[in-house]
């Protein structure tokens, strides 16, 4: 038996060589394509969490099995990451030695003619001289190497350059993507019209920093949301335009700038950009206890459910005793029919109505589990009322009253810092340029050899693109002695 150490190292070396071969890289790339399919079939948690929940409600057992195989988190799953990581290693392991190889190749003279030209492509024997062939090669800008009785000529070295470019740029792309995820951040914040967003961690509704992004380095800009206008098609409710007016400050002591944000026009602060993501309504309410003192006052963001902005929301008043919550719906243009009951028939505020049921008891807000701001856990509560209000109206219940004062729109701002994106973009453009060059530039060799006063000609198409035979025919036509 061979020594185990030798066995392991040679096995490792063998595996490494397999992993870093071009073939493996290609197979992994294909595998990555196949592995990305399930993510387009099953709803993904990162994109549509509500649909995933629906899946669990409809078929709990099936969904659990799907979840075991990460089919709701395909692009973050261990197996997807494994392919991605292997591809990365394979590319780096393949690219660096290859780049070196290609780099040398670019400057190489063509190898000497094989001893038997007869077996090569387009073989012919013609009556002419070596000198004429030499001249023809030079005129057509072939790179040549000559011996006493033969010439080897090669053209299309750009293909190697393309190859080199492709492989090196891929690393740039991968580094760009990695850079974004470790040095970048993204977060979202709901801001009511009239309020100011100050870029500090506590003002976010959710915030995902990259591993090496320190929250202290959040740029210190502020955005005051002055006005938000949305217009809709009167017949179809389709949105026609969203326009957000803001006043921004780069840092606490820089001057104020008025700006307009649109869906395709984000705000830019250095490498951080702020996008207008979504919009909805916040009803303004005042809640008083039975003695008439104000226990809650202000706008409450509601979550839109459809294109007419029918919204759901929760008004929570933990400061009352007992605690009170309102499980609510809001319709900007209230309508009613047999099938749907109450609903909204248009997204603008034509006839706003706030519907709610009133609950008293324990809101369960102190047990440390983060709660949705749109829902109320009514397990420990008792329903004590049900009503609908128009603007200006009030409703009194057992332990207090609620007044519906008006409505302000809210916008969802998405803040993204993506420092690697330029590298990813430039890298992918260069990589694809390289790929196209290496796929479409014909690299070919032509050899001529003097045998008994005549010339043998043959060639080799290094990438199997057609055209070599025609080229040889043309060469023969131009240099052959017409005897």
């Amino acid at each position, binding site marked *: 038996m061979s020594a185990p150490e030798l066995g392991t190292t040679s096995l490792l070396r063998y595996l490494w060589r397999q992993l870093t071969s071009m073939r493996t890289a*290609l197979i992994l*790339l*294909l595998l*990555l*394509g*196949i592995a*990305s*399919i399930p*993510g*387009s079939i099953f*709803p*993904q948690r990162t*994109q*549509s969490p509500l*649909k995933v929940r629906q899946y669990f409600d409809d078929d709990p057992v099936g969904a659990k099995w799907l979840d075991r195989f990460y089919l709701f988190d*395909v*692009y973050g799953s261990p197996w997807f990451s494994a392919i991605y990581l292997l591809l990365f290693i394979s590319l780096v392991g393949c690219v660096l030695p290859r780049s070196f190889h290609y780099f040398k190749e670019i400057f190489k003279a063509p190898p000497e003619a094989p001893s038997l030209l007869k077996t090569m492509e387009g073989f012919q024997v013609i009556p002419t001289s070596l000198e004429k062939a030499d001249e023809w090669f030079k005129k057509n800008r072939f790179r040549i190497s000559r011996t006493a009785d033969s010439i080897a000529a090669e053209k299309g070295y750009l293909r190697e350059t393309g190859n080199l470019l492709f492989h090196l740029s891929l690393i740039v792309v991968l580094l760009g993507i990695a850079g974004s995820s470790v040095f970048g951040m*993204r977060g979202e914040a709901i801001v009511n019209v009239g309020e100011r967003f100050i870029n500090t961690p506590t003002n976010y509704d959710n915030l995902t920093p990259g591993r090496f992004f320190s929250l202290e380095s959040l740029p210190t800009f502020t955005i005051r949301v002055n006005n938000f206008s949305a217009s809709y*098609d009167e017949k*179809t409710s*389709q*949105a*026609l*335009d*969203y326009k957000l007016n803001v006043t921004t400050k780069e840092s606490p002591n820089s001057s104020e700038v008025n700006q307009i944000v*649109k*869906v*395709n*026009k*984000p705000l830019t602060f250095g490498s951080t*950009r702020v*996008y207008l*993501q979504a919009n909805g309504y916040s009803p303004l309410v005042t809640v008083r206890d039975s003695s008439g003192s104000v226990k809650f006052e202000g706008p409450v963001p509601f979550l839109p459910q459809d294109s007419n902005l029918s919204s759901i929301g929760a008004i929570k008043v933990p400061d009352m005793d007992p605690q009170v919550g309102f499980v609510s719906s809001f319709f900007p243009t209230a309508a009613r029919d047999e099938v749907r009951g109450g609903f909204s028939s248009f997204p603008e505020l034509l006839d706003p109505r706030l519907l709610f049921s009133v609950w008293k008891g324990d809101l369960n807000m102190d047990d440390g589990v983060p709660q949705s701001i749109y829902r109320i856990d009514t397990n420990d509560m008792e329903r004590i009322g049900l009503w609908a209000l128009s603007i200006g109206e009030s409703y009194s219940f057992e332990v207090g009253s609620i007044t519906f004062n008006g409505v302000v729109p809210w916008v969802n701002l*998405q803040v*993204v810092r*993506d420092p690697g*994106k330029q590298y*990813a*973009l430039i890298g*992918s*453009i260069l990589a*694809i340029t390289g*790929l*196209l060059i290496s*796929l*479409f530039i014909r690299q070919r060799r032509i050899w001529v050899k003097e045998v008994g006063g005549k010339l043998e000609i043959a060639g080799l198409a290094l*990438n*199997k*693109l*057609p055209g070599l035979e025609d080229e040889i025919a043309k060469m023969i036509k131009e240099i052959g002695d017409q005897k």
Partner: protein
Amino acid sequence: MSQSDWAYLSNDLIYVALALYALSFLSYTYETAFSIRANKISGDKHLDRSITTKSRKVASIVFLLATASLTLAVIARGISAERIPLGNMYEYSITGAMTFALAYLIIGLKFDLSWLGLPSSILILLILGTAITLLYRPSAPLVPALQSSWLVIHVSSAILSGGIFLLSNTVAGAYLWLDRVERKGVRGEFAKRFPSLESLDQLSYRLVAFVFPLWTFAVISGAIWAEAAWGRYWGWDPKETWAFITWILYASYLHARVTAGWKGRKAAWLCLIAGSSYLFNYVYINVWGSGRHTYSGL
């Protein structure tokens, strides 16, 4: 003319185009059927396309007129909406059919494509028929996410690529069918009208090699746009995922041809598979899919 007049004009022109393509389809069918003559005495059949020169000419002129009408319909649709007509699936489909027809005509200037006239007119009839009956939406302004000059760049390169992918798929399909015929024996009289396997193979390869860079551009411009509109350049949205898969499949096709020397049957199959992933992306994700590319208006 008012905007709705333009919209009506566009609809009328689509119907005119539909009628003309149907006429062209009939002439091609006539040409196909009557170019095969039976010998009166022996009963042998043989192909003689010189008999049907006239009907072939009629068919191709009618095809040209149909395409002109379709092109005008697309333009009128754009004028009625005051934007490029690429805002919902009805518009993608009529524009896609137009690019397919134009690609067929332009390539027809260089190669004789009259053998492809019959399948092409059938395909266009199918696309336009589906568009009118199932996908039609009145002319309307764009949703805010699409109000960007990237719409023109991204969507027109994607749809243009689609038209040409469809053409190369038709050619690859013809290849596979003729390949089967030839493996069983010699070509029958009907199959004789088609060019040699070799030239079909070359033609479908050339079409792919031509659009692949355009397709790449469509995907990259999508990513640039996504960065501006959605705040990320890549997010594995279903449409993005399938664009990636299609890209990989076509890249494998080119790679297999150039470095591994694939040709003929294997290459034609790979071409068909790659083209199907494009079609799947177009039909399935637009109609039943989810994600952010939900602009089909369905």
